[in-house]
């Protein structure tokens, strides 16, 4: 019996030692490139798996009631972009601001806020899911991205839509920290994908991305670029930023954020 007790204790100590090894091993693995690529394989499964269900029927994200709207909708990331140019835009209430649409399009276009507001609009009350885990509900009004892209006429080799933003989360001087995002055409042409200029019935506030932000309702919050200045159609995004398709993607987050 005594012998057995000792071996049990040895087993426990062994298990704790193994636990410690696993921990430091996990950190090392987490920073190992080959292992990282293996873990990233799951993102392809997430994308393929979800697109199998989402692609064909393009289901809508659930829309909620006015009474469901969050009293406080947390503004995450940048809440007020730095720089004289953006400050000037805010002071002039974006009166001479224009949303540029370019890249692989037949007709590069630019629209003022008034012109965007005059286009057919969509209003939706949706749930915003942050990658951190919280959810908030807000009402968004904007112009369908598909409507804008139809006017600019995508070239056949356009595969992704890139959003160039005014906020620089890193306060970089060379623009390397400027926020950007990208989505594919499945999400770009989804009927709830809008460029929103109003939130909860008011002009889009600065903390939430004035003058205009993307809403792509079947993905997480970091995909929904705020302070959008320019929309670009591209064939691939490997030469933009660090090549992962977005500011947070360049810093390790998944490009496909439907989960």
């Amino acid at each position, binding site marked *: 019996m005594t012998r057995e007790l000792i071996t049990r204790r040895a087993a426990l100590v062994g298990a704790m030692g193994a636990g410690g090894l696993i921990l430091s091993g996990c950190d090392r693995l987490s920073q190992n490139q080959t292992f*990282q690529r293996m873990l990233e394989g799951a993102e392809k499964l997430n994308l393929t798996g979800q697109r199998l269900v989402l692609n064909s029927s393009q289901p809508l994200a659930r829309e909620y009631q006015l009474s469901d709207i969050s009293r406080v909708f947390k503004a995450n990331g940048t809440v007020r972009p730095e720089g004289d140019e953006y400050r000037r835009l805010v002071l002039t209430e974006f009166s001479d601001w224009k949303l540029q649409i370019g890249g692989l399009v037949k007709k590069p276009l630019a629209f003022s806020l008034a012109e965007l507001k005059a286009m057919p609009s969509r209003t939706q009350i949706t749930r915003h899911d942050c990658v951190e885990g919280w*959810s908030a509900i807000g009402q968004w009004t904007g112009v369908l991205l598909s409507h804008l892209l139809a006017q600019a006429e995508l070239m056949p080799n356009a595969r992704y839509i890139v959003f160039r933003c005014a906020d620089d989360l890193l306060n970089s001087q060379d623009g390397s920290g400027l926020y950007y995002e990208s989505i594919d055409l499945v999400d770009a042409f989804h009927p709830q994908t809008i460029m929103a200029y109003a939130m909860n019935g008011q002009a889009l506030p600065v903390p939430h991305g004035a003058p205009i932000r993307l809403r792509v309702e079947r993905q997480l919050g970091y995909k929904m670029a705020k302070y959008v200045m320019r929309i670009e159609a591209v064939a691939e995004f490997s030469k933009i930023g660090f090549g992962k398709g977005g500011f947070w993607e360049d810093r390790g987050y998944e490009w496909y954020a439907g989960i």
Partner: protein
Amino acid sequence: MALDIADQNIAEEARGRAARKTGSGKELIYRHTLFVRLAHWINLLCVVLLLMSGLQIFNAHPMLHWGIKGDEADPSLLSIYAEDQVEGPPIGWVQIGDRKFDTTGVLGVFRDRDGFLSGRAFPWWITVPSYQSLAEGRRWHFFFAWLFALNGLAFVIYGFAARHFQRDLAPTRFDIRNIGRSILDHLKLKHARGEAAKRYNVLQKLTYIAVIFVLLPLMIVTGLTMSPGVDSAAPWLPEIFTGRQSARTIHFVTATLIVLFVFVHILEVLLSGFFNEMRSMITGWFAVRPEKIEPGRSEP
């Protein structure tokens, strides 16, 4: 007695199971097939890494809510946070409902690996990676979630096809009738010998059924419910849990129940014979201790 064991061997063989005798007179039965053993260890790896990367993800928003929505401004069922003090080090709090507990040193505020005070919810030694990284935590979580789901699916298909569930897990009428006796045996930490040790006892069967068919699948389903993509394709999913934040809370509570199961499971392995149990889950062979002949009792 010799006749008895021969009979038992025949009985075991009739149930499709190999049995043999060791030199020391102990009887070895082939308890776990290779498929079950592989599935068990893959599952262990997945559950441990899912738990640790899950706590890493939880640390990004260390609060639980009920319903559709919830963030810092909304009420929380549970919250783990650090509270800065005017003087002295910060205090780590765990709030559950209306009550809060000082958990400084373990939850909310703890010394990091390098000895520095850190204000995260779950400490470094239980998260993967040990440092704060939501992005890396998610990568680990989704990779092992796929492995876990595919392994679990293969195990469930195998379990029914090979009649492992029907034969070994389904409680018999005898089991149900004697459930009181089994509870008593567990309370007295008394472990089965002889013929009874060849089968799972009724509490064991019910626990495994609950883990395999309720807790583990519930982890997958509540996990999927947190996905905005899945929710658009299956809007009924968040409905059945009364909302995405409820699903997140259930995900956390179910994970806690699985941790509880693992603790009891390991305790039972230690109490009922660590090496025998480990051998049976590694090689498949399990030694059955002979029936104890108690003086003054003639019961078989």
